[in-house]
Every structure is written in structure tokens, then in C-alpha cells.
């Protein structure tokens, strides 16, 4: 393992590269916009070229600075700013996603551990696990919400709509965890398994001391996918289930007002991206913490 100062330097460099990437992105956006604007201006004489390119006027592509300024604008005089609304929505969505992610991880791991017990179970069940992911999310979201409102009275706590959204996120996250988790649990060599057998280790001991730790390097890539999927799942779930308070609702509202203020939707999109990045960042931090000394940390 490298010394801590060099890992710190590597991290600083990554942050720097990311900042440069953002600036380049903003410059490309602005550059294309200026270019398109120039063509639009000459369109009267040159209309053939202009009609080939996507429009770049302020309605279609609001200026970068306007988008940034929109964070501080309030829809109503003296009211909450757009940036604040987005932050609140992001936190709301992040909570739904986190609950869904946690439940999905537990369910995914449980499925992996059960399938580990027999090859036959694995062959029989895996196709159904895969098939589960072909169900269109947008279609089941409203169903889940209705179930939550009317069908879950037996629960000891009152079911809230946001929990239905978490359930939708769970549905997306359990899959990569189950599939990669199973591969990871199966990764120890036959010698390692025989060694455990020679110590007369119980099935539980083998799982805890050998198979689970061995599965971590396989599990973390799945958890990163699951982290973004849970955020996307939560947003889509909010939209199709009509749950208020999160980014999904915000995106729906701002999309409705796109004609009068396109910047707002861009703010919401940036908010959603940052939320996804935060989710992945949390998983990556956990990964560094757990795998740091193994010499097999990703990247």
C-alpha cells in the first residue's frame, strides 16, 4: 500500500480533474450556443444550415450563468429559492433512495446466500431474478403506492407514500447485489473451502470468515450501480406515483413551467446528478474504509 500522503495527492488530483471537466463542459455548452446563435442570426439568408442544427436560443439552451443564477432566485417574492427547493427535494429523495438501497442490499445478499446453498436452486431461481428486472418500473410504481395506501394495514407502523418509493428503489437495487454477491460468495478457491472443512468449520463460520469477506470486492461494484439505480428509481417512482416532496415532483413542476423559465429544470437536473454522485461517493468511501489494506482497492 502506498503511503497516505500519496493517496491524498491522488485524491486532490482527481478533484482537480473533475473541476476542469465541469469547466470544459460549461465552455463547450456556451461555445456551441454562441455558434448556433450566430447561425440563427444569419438564418434569413442561410436558413438551410440553421434548420439542420438543434436550436440554441435561450429557450432551448439557457446560458450557463443564468442557470447558476437561478439557484438563488425565488419563484415568489421573498419565498424559498430554487436552490433551496432543489436541496430539500434532493434530501427527501436521497432518504427514500437510502432506505431502498439498504433494504435492496439486505434482500439481495439474502438471496445470494440462499442460492449459494445449492446449484439447483441457483439454476432454478436466477432466471426469475433476471425476469424481475424486465417489469417496467413506471407501470408498477402507481400499483405499489395504491397497495401502500390501502393494503398494508397489518403493519405496526403507518405506511407513508415515500416508503412506496423506497420499495421501488429496493426493486432496482436488489438485483445487482444478488447477482454479483453470489459470484463473490462463490469466489474462494476449492483449497480455501477444503481448509475450512479441515478445521471442521460450520457452514455459518465458512460464510462469515471466508465467503462474505471474499465477496466484498465483487459486491462493491454492484453497490455503486445500486446506489445510482436507487436514486434514479426514487425519482422515477416519485414521478409515476405522484409522490410530493422530492426531486421527482420538482422535475415534473419545473418541466411544466419550462416555457416561461427553462433554467429551473436545469437546476433540478443538476440537483439530481449531484444526488446520484453523493450516493456513489458514500459507497466509495465505505469501500475505501473496508478494503483499504487488501491491496485490491478499485482504482
Amino acid at each position, binding site marked *: 500500500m502506498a503511503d497516505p500522503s500519496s493517496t491524498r495527492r491522488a485524491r486532490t488530483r482527481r478533484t482537480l480533474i473533475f473541476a476542469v471537466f465541469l469547466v470544459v463542459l460549461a465552455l463547450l455548452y456556451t461555445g456551441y450556443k454562441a455558434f448556433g446563435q450566430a447561425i440563427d442570426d444569419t438564418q434569413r439568408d442561410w436558413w438551410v444550415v440553421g434548420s439542420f442544427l438543434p436550436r440554441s436560443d435561450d429557450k432551448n439552451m439557457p446560458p450557463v450563468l443564468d442557470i447558476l443564477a437561478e439557484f438563488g432566485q425565488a419563484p415568489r417574492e421573498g419565498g424559498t429559492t430554487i436552490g433551496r427547493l432543489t436541496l430539500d427535494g434532493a434530501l427527501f429523495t436521497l432518504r427514500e433512495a437510502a432506505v431502498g438501497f439498504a433494504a435492496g442490499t439486505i434482500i439481495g445478499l439474502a438471496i445470494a446466500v440462499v442460492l449459494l446453498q445449492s446449484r439447483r436452486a441457483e439454476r432454478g431461481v436466477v432466471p426469475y431474478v433476471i425476469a424481475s428486472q424486465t417489469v417496467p418500473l413506471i407501470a408498477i410504481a402507481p400499483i405499489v403506492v395504491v397497495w401502500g395506501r390501502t393494503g398494508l394495514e397489518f403493519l405496526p407502523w403507518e405506511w407513508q407514500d415515500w416508503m412506496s418509493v423506497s420499495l421501488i428503489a429496493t426493486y432496482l437495487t436488489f438485483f445487482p447485489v444478488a447477482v454479483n454477491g453470489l459470484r463473490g460468495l462463490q469466489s474462494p478457491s476449492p483449497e480455501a473451502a477444503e481448509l475450512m472443512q479441515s*478445521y*471442521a468449520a460450520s457452514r455459518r463460520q465458512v460464510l462469515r470468515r471466508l465467503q462474505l469477506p471474499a465477496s466484498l470486492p465483487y459486491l462493491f461494484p454492484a453497490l455503486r450501480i445500486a446506489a445510482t439505480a436507487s436514486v434514479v428509481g426514487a425519482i422515477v417512482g416519485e414521478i409515476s406515483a405522484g409522490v410530493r416532496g422530492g426531486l421527482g415532483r420538482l422535475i415534473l413542476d419545473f418541466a411544466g413551467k419550462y416555457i416561461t423559465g427553462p433554467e429551473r429544470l436545469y437546476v433540478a437536473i443538476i440537483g439530481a446528478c449531484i444526488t446520484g454522485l453523493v450516493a456513489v461517493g458514500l459507497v466509495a468511501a465505505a469501500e475505501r474504509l473496508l478494503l483499504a489494506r487488501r491491496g485490491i482497492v478499485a482504482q
Partner: protein
Amino acid sequence: MAQELVLEIAGLEKTFNPGRPNAVTAISGLDLSVRPREFVSIIGPSGCGKSTLLRLVGGLIDPTAGDLSVNGRSAQEARLARDYGMVFQAAGLLDWRSAIRNVELPLELMGWSKSRRRSRATEMLDLVDLGGFASHYPSELSGGMQQRVSIARALSFEPALLLMDEPFGALDEMTREYMQAELLKIWRETATTVVFITHSIPEAVFLSSRVAVMSPRPARIAAEIPIDLPERAPQVRDTEEFFRSVSLVRRTLRSVEHE
């Protein structure tokens, strides 16, 4: 009589996929006994079932027929009683555990207290001359060092029988000779009984009090050659007696192969 033997095998047979078209009889009519504190090497042509024999002894697979007892118990009972320390060609260390935590693994499974297993593991690492590498991870250790950790791990719970399956097969010649000397030192210090699988004749001769030669499949013990060397120091490899024993084992192996 039976009490005086650590390992007693009579008429052992192992057939894989019995009763099916692809049935293979790996071992048939195999007899072998090992006395306490003996170092017995098992040598034979490749693919003759040496590893199968070791797995049968270790209770990892069950024999089709025959008797196999370890200190008067069946192989399964002995395995459950943790009578075996096993070392394979691959060190098989858990790469997320430091050297000392790898040595502690079997002790952990056996429910030893933390302080007790820490002190035993420290002792064992000293025994294999790795006292200074306790907190190193497998990826930071050479192949020979990893194998020494694996030996320390196998001996940590003082098993009645140490089973080694070509433990030095993946090491270069220099490391190999060094490891052989180390193993002999450990064997003398711990007074363990060792069954050692190898395909290297000089290795078998240098290490063993007795070399058992296996026949090709279906395998049995075709000959047993007592080795009587005056002292087991590295220099003994250059003596007349060593050469004589090596060539005796070699001739026996050749005659067995062409039976």
C-alpha cells in the same frame, strides 16, 4: 498395537462415480501405517492419486471401502476433532487478514479467547521465523513466506497429524531447500507426525524417516523405503548415503511404473 499408530490404513479403496460409465478407481488395496513422530513421504508417478490419498486421510472425501483410522478414530471423527493440520501447494491465506490473523483463523473457529490465540499465533510465527511480519498482509509476503505462514497456521492448534500436499511445489529450488530445512527444524521442535506428499525424490529422501512409493492407478503402496541418514543438515545432500537413498527410491519408482 493399534494404539501405538497415529495412522492405520488397510485395504483402502476409492472409486469416483461408482457404478457409472465414467467410474475411476483411483486407489485400491492400499495399506499404510504411520507411528507417532514419524515423517513419512508419499511419492509416486503424477496422477497416481497421491492427493486423493491425502484427502481420504484428512476426511475431506470418504473411501469406497477399507479401513482408515487416526488414533483409533475414523477420518471423519478425527477431522471433527480437529486432529489435522493441512498444508496445500497453494498457501491459501485469506488476503484480507494479516499474517498473524491468518494463523489465528483456526483458533478463532475453535473458540479460543482473543489473548490466548494472539499469544499462540505469535509463538507460531516465531517458530517459522516470521516474528517480524505479524502485521504484514499476504500480498506483501513472498511465496516462501506465505507458505511458512500456512505451516504456522496448520500447527497452531497442535494437530495430531500434519498433512502436507506438495507444499513446496510452487517454490524455486533455493527457497525450496531452505523451506525443507525449516520444516525439519519445526518437526523436531514440535514432535509432530507428518505425512508429506511430493513428486521430488531428493525432497522425500532429505525430509523423511520413511518413503512410501505409490504405484500407478489404481494406486497402492508398492514399496516402503526406510531412510537412514546420519544427520539432517543441508550438507547431507552431498554425501554418499544421500545419493544411495535417492537412487534406491528412483529405481523403485521406475520398477513400479513398469510393473
